[in-house]
């Protein structure tokens, strides 16, 4: 995901801001890390450059 798109991302549940924690990046591109909701505390993983912002119950339904 791209850092310059952080202003148009939010928690899918309560729509509050997400805090970005980067563990791997390639310039502007964030390859791995987490996004944590500043309100409800739910964390959303970023894996292989893709932020997984599915609601948690759907994330669990997703095939591995």
């Amino acid at each position, binding site marked *: *995901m*791209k850092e*310059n*798109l952080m*202003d*148009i*991302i*939010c*928690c*899918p*549940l309560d*729509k509050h*801001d997400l805090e970005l924690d980067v563990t791997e990046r390639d310039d*502007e591109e964030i390859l791995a890390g987490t996004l944590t909701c500043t309100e409800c505390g739910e964390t*959303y993983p970023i894996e*292989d*450059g*893709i*932020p*997984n*912002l*599915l*609601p948690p119950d*759907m994330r669990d*339904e*997703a*095939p591995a």
Partner: protein
Amino acid sequence: MTDDATTDGEADGLDPSDQRAAVRDRYGSITTESPSDSCCDTSCSDETTAEADRLGYSDEDVATVDPDAYLGLGCGNPTAIAELNRGEDVLDLGSGGGFDCFLAAQAVGDDGRVVGVDMTPEMVERARETAETTDASNVEFRLGEIEHLPVPDESVDVILSNCVVNLSPDKPQVFREAYRVLRPGGRLAVSDVVLTADLPVDLAADPDSVAACVGGASTVEEIEAMATDAGFVDVAIEPDDDSEAFIREWDDERDLSDYVVAATIEGTRPDAAH
């Protein structure tokens, strides 16, 4: 008194989680098959061009976007309906292989941004790979659900969607979410199938039919009501009579154009003054 087994609306549809699973299974497996149901492989670009032409894409559209992004799963060209301007921020609901997002990215230019949301991991992975290889710097793909958009209030100018809303188990919520994320004055530009006749009960209850954009389709009146209830104004739904030709090819056993037609669905979020 019990509800009759009507074939419209959500009442008789599948359980929402079954519906999501059917949709995800279908679209997850498509990414690992050939680029499009009706196309042999990436070498048959003439067929891709002809098919895309029927959906309303120009030859230039097809030529300027990486062929890996085109899966032939749409039913129109929402980027044309939207008449995008330079610098606009665009959100695509159910972005799939990313074709419409890449077209939109060219239209809005470097000052604009495009976000695609899709709930199928294989689709998002594929679209992201294409973005990487084509160096598209103003496009991003996210795993997300269109009923729970990971996008803040009033943050985009245009919403695109191509043959996806019909797949949702909660369409009114999709329209409410679309309205929420649009800036005042922002617009909705959707291609989707609409129901023109009552579906046989076996089709309406069949997960494969729902996943194939038929079983979950709504009528023009239902879509109009959903969009209006969400707050959209200037709602316009235009069936595309020419779509009969390609819809007829969607099923070998029966002519689905007896029941559904492709349509453009437009609406506007009113300006702040109210």
